């Protein structure tokens, strides 16, 4: 489903290379986790896949299915089924959460040539999804992420994911800032979406999220590269020994 080949990325404004040859393949139905120390390039990878400005791809390729991702506008990638749950969800004063979600859902449906959801249908679906994530009606009315706690922001990301039903879900440190209960909610939200034709790329700093979202493959990223890949046991190794040991063996 997602194929990344020798991806090199530098900052557009500065002469700073951040990704130095990332190779990664995530098949449909799979969950891959990426772990790695701060500053290793995990968020950059997710932003480049989602199409954020400010980065320059100097080498390599990334595709979703048979679509070359890097040529597309962010909204085209979204319509093609890519979703990024942001590490730092953006606050948008003045835009109601509900309006935001409805506009997004319908924009994607329109882009795919599907019929737009009417207000009643939309309301029915969002109420059910929000309930599962413990998001109350008040949170749906408030402006997008404004005044939300860290946990509320992350749950709101998962709600968007649930509403948009993407093919490839990238979760960038969705567990950071969550207490155990909130993390369980988020994990349950993600697990509910797991299906044979959907793939997940879960970026996390800690192993504990992976207790709840069981990955098929764990990758360790360091200094702009994936330096080691393995099964779930690799996450446990990180948890017990830190990154230092792994990085030493790789070096």
């Amino acid at each position, binding site marked *: 489903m997602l194929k990344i080949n020798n991806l090199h990325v530098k900052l557009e404004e500065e002469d700073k290379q951040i990704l130095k040859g990332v190779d990664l393949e995530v098949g449909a139905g799979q969950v891959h986790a990426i772990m790695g120390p701060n500053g290793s390039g995990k968020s950059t990878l997710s932003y480049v896949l989602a199409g954020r400005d400010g980065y320059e791809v100097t080498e390599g390729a990334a595709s979703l299915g048979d679509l070359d991702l890097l040529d597309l506008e962010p*909204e085209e990638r979204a319509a093609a089924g890519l979703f*990024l749950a942001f590490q730092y969800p953006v606050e948008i004063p*003045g835009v109601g959460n509900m309006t935001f979600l409805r506009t*997004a859902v319908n924009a994607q449906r329109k882009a795919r040539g599907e019929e737009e959801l009417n207000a009643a249908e939309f309301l029915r679906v969002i109420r059910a999804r929000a309930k599962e994530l413990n998001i109350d009606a008040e949170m749906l009315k408030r402006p997008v992420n404004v005044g939300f706690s860290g946990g509320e922001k992350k749950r709101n990301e998962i709600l968007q994911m649930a509403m948009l039903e993407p093919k490839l879900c990238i979760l960038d440190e969705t567990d950071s800032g969550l207490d155990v209960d909130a993390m369980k909610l988020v994990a349950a939200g993600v697990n509910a979406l797991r299906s044979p034709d959907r793939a997940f790329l879960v970026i996390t700093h800690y192993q504990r999220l992976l207790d709840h979202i069981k990955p098929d493959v764990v990758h360790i990223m360091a200094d702009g590269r994936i330096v080691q890949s393995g099964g779930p046991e690799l996450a446990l190794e990180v948890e017990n020994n830190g990154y230092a040991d792994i990085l030493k063996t790789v070096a």
Partner: protein
Amino acid sequence: MAVAAVKSDAATDLLAAWPLPSGEAQWASEARTTAEAWVRERGAPVRRDEYWKYTNPSTLTALPAPEAAVFDASDETPVFDAVDQLRLVFVDGVFDPAQSDDLAMEHVEIEPLGSALAKDIHWARDLYGVLEARGQAPVARPLAALNTARATEGVVIRVTGRAAKPIRVFYQHAARESDALVRHLVLVEEGAEVTVLENGPAASRFNQVMEVEVRDRGVFNHVRAQGRDHERRAVTGTFARLGREAVMKSFTLTVNGRLTRNESVVEFIGDDAVAHLAGACTGEGDFHHDDTVFVTHDAVNCESRQVFKKVLRDGAVGVFQGKILVKEGAQKTDGYQISQGLMLDDDSQFLAKPELEIYADDVVCSHGSTCGAVDETSLFYLRSRGMTRAEAEELLVLAFLDEAIAEIDSAELADEVRGRLAAWLARRRK
């Protein structure tokens, strides 16, 4: 020619362009004479005047009035149509009784200006030209004085209780060349309450003045949506005086129009009163929009609030001149003012001149002004959820303007304005 001579010649021409009405009550003739003398003394406004530094008034004073193509609005529903209302229609600035509702409403007296000025209506006498004249210092507003000197169209409204529904003044623009002077008087008696709605493009050039007196504990709500004819020009003046515990809320939405200058002059004369003035505008290209506000606190513990937002693109110009004057003894004044420009490209301009002048020591006054582009991070967030750049930008524009729209007290009217604005933006996107 010297500037003074240019000003005075232009004033003479403007006064000559409209006939002096005859057969009016003596008080009306006297008010006209006083106003005419003021127009001659101060002359017509020119760009060189400090108060017109950011807005060139030449097309507001030129004769004949510049033409303006009439926008075909037949394929959409005008704003406020869904609101239960008493409707008054003006076509090119002339009252049209045939299209208007019956003027009778409980607790409200409504009369066309022309007939009111022929009668001995004592309250109208105490108001007509009076608030406008008070607003002539410290800055002259000769176009408002011209309105007092010559306007024969408009309505006078006296409210003695709670009006059951809003009075809606609907301005239709019919002729390519139409030069309209329209004058309204509103008296809200003690404890009375009324909402006045205005919308429509009015004329190719529109000079409108409204004098509003809100007596003790009275409430005056004013929501206006200025018409969308691309080429029309308008200069408006709202002159209000508020008594004790009176409340005034005035909001204006402007979409399109080549030139708009909205002046608001508000004076607090009774304690514990509140005035909120807000405006949202969006324009592109040959679009110049000016909000000029002057609030005078001459009473204790009054609250004034100004919230003005402008979205500009393609060389459009937005101007805000806002002043809060706190007179000696006006203690416990709470004055707030914010003006913000959102530039959708590098060609547009937002010019702001916020001013505070304070002669009392126990007051809280603040003002701020910002000007910036659409936030790129927000844009990316919205686009990453599937919205096109245009859709995302539109949502952010609506959000930006909503802070001004939220100043409207009535949720129903605020939603009317939101709906209209969203429809206008969506239409432009196509």
